């Protein structure tokens, strides 16, 4: 079946530390996958390997049929030329915990920049599309505002629009609400909920168990650089098999 993302036996080592230790992950088109797990279990590293913010130590990643990296007989990870890597990674849209909006650009410019400069889209069309995206995330009136003039929740919604503007085949979210005050996480989660409904493929690292339970098609529990358990949300949350997951869920619910 058509997988948007295939990750095979991914190993990522930082010095002596194995951040990822043999991860296999397949994401189907239209699927929403939530990744949960304790701090330091390798969730961010996994996402960052998908769009080459980190280079894998070994393993294979295929994004929408294009090979981003494979491992040769000698165990070396082989990436194509930088230009091709960038083109493959542009198939993924990344949303960061700390937004990382371009501070010197207005919201509209933030959204249009990559489509115009990287994809060489027609400028008027890109602007038109950016306005649609601003509507989609509920901020049409912020077109000319600078990031510094927005609240955290608004910044994150603009960041989502910026990611969507490249028409990626998969959206990656790394704890998109962790830097936000609890009372404004809702506006961001709402936008993501709508994306999931419109069958945009998403890989979401999150501490929002309610969101994972409600929106995800599949939940992955990571521990010590491996996928320790995965399944439908009901299974994971109502019927956790491994002791680690049980402990993790207990510790989360206590907070």
């Amino acid at each position, binding site marked *: 079946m058509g997988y948007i993302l295939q990750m095979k036996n991914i190993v990522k080592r930082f010095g002596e530390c194995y951040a990822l230790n043999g991860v296999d992950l397949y994401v189907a088109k239209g699927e929403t996958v939530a990744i949960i797990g304790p701090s330091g279990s390798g969730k961010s590293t996994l996402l960052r390997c998908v*769009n*080459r*913010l980190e280079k894998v130590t070994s393993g294979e990643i295929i994004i929408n049929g294009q090979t981003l990296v494979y491992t040769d007989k000698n165990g070396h990870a082989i990436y194509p030329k*930088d*230009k091709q890597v*960038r*083109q493959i*990674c*542009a198939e*993924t*849209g*990344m949303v*960061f915990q*700390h*937004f*990382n*909006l*371009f*501070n*010197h*650009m207005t919201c509209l410019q933030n959204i249009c*920049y*990559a489509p115009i*400069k*990287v*994809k060489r889209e027609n400028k008027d069309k890109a602007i038109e599309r950016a306005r649609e995206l601003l509507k989609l995330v509920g901020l049409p009136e912020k077109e000319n505002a*600078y*990031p*510094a*003039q927005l609240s955290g929740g608004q910044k994150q919604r603009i960041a989502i629009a*910026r*990611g969507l503007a*490249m028409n990626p085949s998969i959206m990656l979210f790394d704890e998109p609400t962790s830097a936000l005050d609890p009372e404004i996480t809702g506006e961001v989660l709402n936008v993501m909920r709508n994306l999931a409904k419109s069958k945009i493929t998403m890989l979401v690292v999150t501490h929002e168990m309610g969101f994972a339970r409600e929106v995800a098609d599949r939940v992955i529990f990571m521990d010590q650089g491996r996928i320790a358990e995965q399944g439908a949300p009901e299974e994971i949350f109502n019927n956790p098999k491994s002791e680690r997951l049980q402990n993790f869920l207990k510790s989360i619910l206590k907070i």
Partner: protein
Amino acid sequence: MADFISSIISSFDYIKEILPALLEGTQFTVKLFALTLLLSIPLGLPFALGSISKFWPIKIICKTYIWLFRGTPLMLQLFFFYFFLPIAMDVRLDSFTTAVITFVLNYAAYFAEIYRAGIESIDRGQHEAARSLGVSKTRTMFDIILPQTIKRVLPPVSNEAITLVKDTALVSAIGVGELLKAARGAVNRDVNVTAYAIAAAIYLVLTFVLTLISRWLEKHFSKYEARGD
């Protein structure tokens, strides 16, 4: 009383007498200042980019250049070029041109270091966001990083500009007739320190104007930081 008035009038006359020479000196000072700034501000950028380059030969060349020019006295560099260029390279340049060349090379090194620090102070998240959108390294530098660096380097750059105004006085050592040299001429000739006071006033006016300009620029470039960073 009459004595006092007549002494004021005569000192006015004296000022009127020495002013043309001082203003001519000021011309050299301002010209040297403007040329140095105009050339060294852009020249600092390639050296800054070179000093953070991943290509080590370029990195070493740029770092060495910055180290040499920041690590030795400007006065020494001035003497060096004044004697080195004619003797070793057989080019004859007037002392003003020599001064401009030395100052540009010296100040470009300082600006390069300021730019480097500014570029490296931009949050890594900006690089990562650009990368995740498929933006090339070069484009990221010129479209995303450098525009945000301008605001951060403005205060140290204007600081250097003010230092430069005062450094111009050094070139009298190789015979350029700038403001301080003109003033010293008048003081030695007339045994009267008025010329120094006027020179000081002129330097103060120049640095004051610079302060105003830099303040205006800082305001202009912080328009996108309505609520700070």
